[in-house]
């Protein structure tokens, strides 16, 4: 039977607007303005989930984004489902369906709850220690762990919503619209700054806006009334933009911030179509004012995690803002004055309070006096030692604290309650400040970390800066803003502030108990079920660094990043190990401050916009002719052209055979092309390639190998001398951009005296490559005027000519080992030239081939592919390409490194060919190569880099790198595979036409 705990009307809730929603399948009602948490509490529901490890029943704990327990799944099994949503943040709407996570089969009966009784055997590090061995069992363990501990289910259907990114530039950004943020925003905007104010909640005014007490007044008005007028004023300021439901996720250096603006999550589902759901704001601000407030701390005692235990400030907010009580018999437990603000609020609303338990002895506090005046019993110098009630708290036990706070003494007193508010004081929300590079210091008085050293152009104000009382906050803001914004006068200088808050606090990180710690469950991290006992265990086992303790106990590693309990974890470590808090420091706060959806992160970059791709001018032809495509860098390259019913293997074998038997045609437009001009071009090429270039005649082409300064092969390609001072260089498809960058680097920084100009012309030309014994006949048909005789147009030469009216550069160069031509034309003529070649080649069965056949053909010829047959550890000597390394040149990039002690070793991995004993057996690329399989450990000699079945040689061929391979010609080696061993013989990497007869045919 559910009750209605709604009390006096709140102006923040519209009771004329009733909303129905479902929680765990049951229908409830709330009002416009409610969060899921407040609506559930008004229905007297606290139990909303199970804890991660022990599956203990857990209830709503907070009223904000720091919530560790009330984590729900929205719209389960639909395309809009979302896990890990905090019930304290989601605003209810008609048709909302939420369900508990981490409980199976239901929140009321949870099989994992048995872990709670097993907890003596489930200490910190349990998962690590138990499930790590034997390794082969991990898959089995994992299944059960995941099933019983999973945090929500990810969506399986496409996300129907639209997300976007937006850049914002402003003079002043203010994060947080509490009283500090409002004052800062008004001051900045009124002084002419283009100002942006962002607030994660759906309303402005922070916790002051629902503050109703006579004890906190500004200019003789209750602080909330005063602030309301300020808010109404700032809404009218033109150069101030206000964004609510916008939470800053990350604060990077140079005032660059990411924020998520939530636009439709509070709408009923049917109203969300065609609207942007989340907007990722990329904000660059000249100045940033952080006013993110502070988070109330819990208190750490035995069984402090039962449903019905909330932060004291949350109970106050539920009463004042949402107009709901959290229980009928409330108790409060505190070590500072904050809980009395709650007590007074509850009393005003007519909500019953059984008792306030205060760690402190007699304190001169106006708030305590008023509480006692209202006949509320205050236990001074007492502490809660235990609670009871499985699915809802029903009792607390308190005892007197010893003078030093280390022990409990005297008789136990039992107090019946169905709700307990706890307050351990306040922790400044410094997460964003530290993300931005700010450094903290520890303030001993009230045991808080506060901002110390700021990066340039930012400041923290209000309680995130460690100012907790209204008078302190206002006083410091005025001073800080004047200095930070460089303004002389500020309108708030003569405010009359009344604040009755007494700052005294009795800070005890782990409260004493009448039991041994081993017999208690004082939770520090609610979401990850880490207790004080776990932290002590970690310290006993030798962990000292806070970062290590965090990972071992998983404290602070949940989706809430331990916003509530991290300080206590530190405190307990400090007390146990004797290290100072200041020295321990905090763990790193990482972005995002609150979780972001993937949709927000990717924005519009989904589907075909996920990644850009480049297509050649001949791309459409490949599509029309049913090519399969391969990604090469950002390029889509035709991979092979399967005919009806052909497998990839069939197609590649057919294409490869046709290219050598008659003619093949390849789209080589993706090759990088760099235009090089200037009087020092030849000298420049001499310096960056391993071979000599000065004597290359105009009209001739040469293959070049480019090294890194460490001597390792970096790129290769053919460069053609177009004119005395004009070259065109080709690079690998993937290397085009980095090669250009590297060449520019040398020109600008090492050799600025060289007269050389580089221009990337990759996209300006289309390249059609025609190869095979009939290629000459075909190209002669396309360009009838040109003399194709070997004398006039020999291998490795070039001609400037025309195809009809189209100017073209034609090179007789070959990557396949066949007689072949590369025609380069202005990109937009590419497709027509391709089609001309196809037409001319029809009688010769000209066969289009893709990258796979290209790779096969060049492997038959033993040509390397940089990046496939090489990695960054292969020198030209390792590749057995000594012929290309000039001995005469005094210097070139990488030369000196070729005779370092390491690069001259004979037993380096060297490129060789491999032939399999069984000629039909094709090796797997990447397979390891060994000589002696019986030796233990087995010595790995190298691996297979390229492997194909050659239709032209009718056998399997492979390239490989093998340690000392150069001197192993004819040796037998073994390739051990999962279920077999393959015997291979080391061979010359050139498998076909070593004499180059085909090239010159």
């Amino acid at each position, binding site marked *: 039977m559910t009750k209605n705990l709604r009390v006096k009307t709140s102006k923040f809730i519209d009771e004329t607007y009733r909303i129905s929603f479902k929680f765990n399948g049951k229908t409830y009602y709330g009002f416009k303005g409610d969060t899921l948490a407040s609506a559930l509490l008004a229905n007297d529901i606290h139990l909303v989930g199970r804890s991660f490890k022990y599956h203990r029943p857990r209830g709503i704990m907070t009223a904000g984004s720091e919530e560790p327990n009330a984590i729900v799944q929205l719209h389960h099994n639909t395309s809009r489902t979302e896990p890990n949503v905090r019930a304290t943040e989601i605003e209810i709407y008609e048709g909302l369906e939420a369900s508990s996570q981490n409980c199976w089969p239901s929140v009321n009966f949870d099989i994992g709850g048995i872990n709670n009784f097993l907890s003596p055997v489930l200490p910190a590090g349990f998962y690590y220690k138990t499930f790590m061995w034997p390794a082969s069992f991990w898959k089995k363990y994992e299944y059960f762990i995941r099933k019983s501990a999973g945090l929500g289910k990810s969506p399986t259907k496409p996300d129907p919503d639209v997300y976007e990114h937006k850049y914002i530039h402003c003079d002043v950004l203010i994060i947080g619209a509490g009283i500090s943020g409002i004052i800062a925003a008004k001051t900045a905007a009124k002084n002419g700054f283009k100002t942006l104010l962002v607030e994660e909640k759906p309303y402005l005014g922070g916790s002051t806006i629902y503050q109703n007490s006579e004890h906190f007044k500004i200019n003789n008005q209750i602080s909330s009334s005063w602030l309301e007028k300020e808010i109404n004023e700032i809404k009218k300021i033109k150069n101030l933009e206000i964004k609510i439901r916008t939470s800053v996720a990350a604060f*990077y250096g140079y005032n660059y911030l990411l924020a998520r603006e939530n636009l439709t999550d509070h709408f009923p589902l049917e109203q969300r179509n065609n609207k942007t759901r989340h907007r990722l704001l990329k904000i660059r601000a000249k100045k940033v004012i952080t006013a993110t407030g502070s988070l109330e701390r819990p208190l750490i005692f035995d069984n402090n995690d039962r449903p019905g235990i909330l932060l004291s400030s949350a109970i106050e907010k539920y009463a004042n803002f949402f107009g709901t009580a959290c229980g009928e018999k409330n108790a409060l437990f505190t070590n500072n004055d904050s809980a009395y603000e709650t007590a007074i609020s509850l009393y005003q609303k007519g909500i019953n309070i059984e008792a306030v338990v205060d760690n402190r002895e007699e304190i001169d506090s106006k708030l305590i006096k008023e509480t006692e005046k209202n006949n509320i019993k205050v236990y001074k110098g007492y502490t809660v030692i235990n609670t009871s009630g499985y699915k809802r708290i029903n009792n607390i036990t308190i005892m007197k604290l010893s003078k030093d706070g280390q022990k409990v003494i005297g008789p136990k007193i039992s107090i019946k309650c169905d709700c307990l508010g706890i307050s351990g004081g306040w922790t400044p929300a410094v997460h964003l400040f530290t993300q931005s590079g700010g450094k903290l210091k520890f303030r001993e008085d009230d045991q808080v970390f506060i901002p110390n050293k700021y990066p340039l152009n930012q400041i923290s104000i209000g309680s995130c800066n460690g100012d907790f009382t209204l008078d302190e906050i206002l006083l410091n803001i005025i001073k800080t803003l004047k200095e930070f914004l460089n303004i002389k006068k500020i309108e708030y200088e003569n405010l009359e502030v009344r604040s009755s808050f007494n700052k005294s606090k009795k800070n005890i990180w782990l409260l004493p108990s009448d039991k041994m710690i081993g017999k208690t469950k004082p939770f520090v991290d609610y979401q990850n079920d880490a207790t004080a006992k776990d932290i002590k265990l970690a310290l006993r086992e030798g962990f000292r660094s806070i970062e290590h303790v965090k990972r071992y106990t998983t404290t602070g590693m949940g989706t809430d990043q331990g916003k509530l309990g991290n300080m206590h974890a530190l405190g307990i470590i400090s007390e146990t190990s004797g290290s100072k808090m200041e020295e321990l420091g905090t763990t790193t706060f990482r972005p995002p401050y609150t979780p972001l959806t993937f949709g927000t992160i990717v924005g519009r970059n989904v589907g075909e916009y996920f990644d850009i791709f480049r297509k050649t001018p001949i791309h459409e032809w490949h599509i029309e002719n049913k090519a399969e495509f391969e990604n090469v860098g950002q390029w889509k390259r035709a991979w092979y052209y399967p005919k009806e019913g052909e497998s990839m293997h069939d197609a590649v074998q057919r294409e490869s055979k046709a290219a050598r038997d008659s003619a093949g045609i390849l789209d080589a437009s993706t090759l990088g092309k760099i235009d090089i001009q200037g009087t020092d071009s030849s000298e420049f090429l001499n310096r960056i390639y391993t071979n000599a270039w000065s004597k290359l005649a105009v009209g001739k082409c040469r293959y070049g190998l480019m090294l890194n300064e*460490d001597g390792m092969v970096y790129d290769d390609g053919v460069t053609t001398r177009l004119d005395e001072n004009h070259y065109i260089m080709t690079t690998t498809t993937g290397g085009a951009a980095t090669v250009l960058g590297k060449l520019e680097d040398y020109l600008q920084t090492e050799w600025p005296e060289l007269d050389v100009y580089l221009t990337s012309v990759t996209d300006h030309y289309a390249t059609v490559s025609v190869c095979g014994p009939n290629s000459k006949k075909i190209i002669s048909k396309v360009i009838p005027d040109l003399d194709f005789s070997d004398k006039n147009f020999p291998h490795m030469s070039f001609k400037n000519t025309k195809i009809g009216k189209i100017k073209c550069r034609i090179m007789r160069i070959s990557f396949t080992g066949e007689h072949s031509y590369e025609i380069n034309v202005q990109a937009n003529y590419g497709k027509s030239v391709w089609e001309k070649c196809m037409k001319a080649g029809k009688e010769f069965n000209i066969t289009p081939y893709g990258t796979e056949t290209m790779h096969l053909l060049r492997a038959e010829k033993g040509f390397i592919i940089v990046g496939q047959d090489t990695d960054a550890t292969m020198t030209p000597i390792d590749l057995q390409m000594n012929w290309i390394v000039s001995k005469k040149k005094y*210097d070139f990039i990488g030369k000196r490194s070729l005779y370092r002690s390491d690069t001259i070793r004979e037993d380096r991995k060297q490129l060789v060919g491999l032939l399999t004993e069984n000629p039909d057996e094709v090796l797997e690329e990447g397979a390891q190569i060994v000589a002696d399989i019986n030796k233990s450990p087995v010595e790995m000699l190298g691996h297979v880099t390229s492997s194909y079945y050659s239709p032209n040689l009718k056998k399997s061929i492979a390239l490989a790198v093998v340690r000392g391979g150069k001197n192993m010609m004819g040796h037998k080696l073994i390739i051990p595979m999962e279920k077999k061993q393959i015997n291979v013989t080391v061979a010359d990497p050139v498998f076909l036409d070593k004499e180059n007869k085909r090239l010159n045919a």
Partner: protein
Amino acid sequence: MFIINCPYCGEREQSEFKAGGEAHIVRPKQPTELSDDEWAEYLFMRKNIKGIQFERWVHTHGCRKWFNMIRDTSNDEIKAVYKMGDKPPIK
């Protein structure tokens, strides 16, 4: 993310630039005359300091010019940028 004042273009986002390692390491004029150790010193050894560091940067998605930057690596404050070949404006 930094804002970098390119000496040729002015202030631009860091995403337009690429870092190119320590500055003022000159390629030896006669590499062949260096011992392995001397060559290794040029090739591999970098200071990687916490504090004031002299770095090379290039405006890749802009003017494509290389320039030098003085940056405090402890807080990412950029102290100065200056053209290749210029003397560092501060020590």
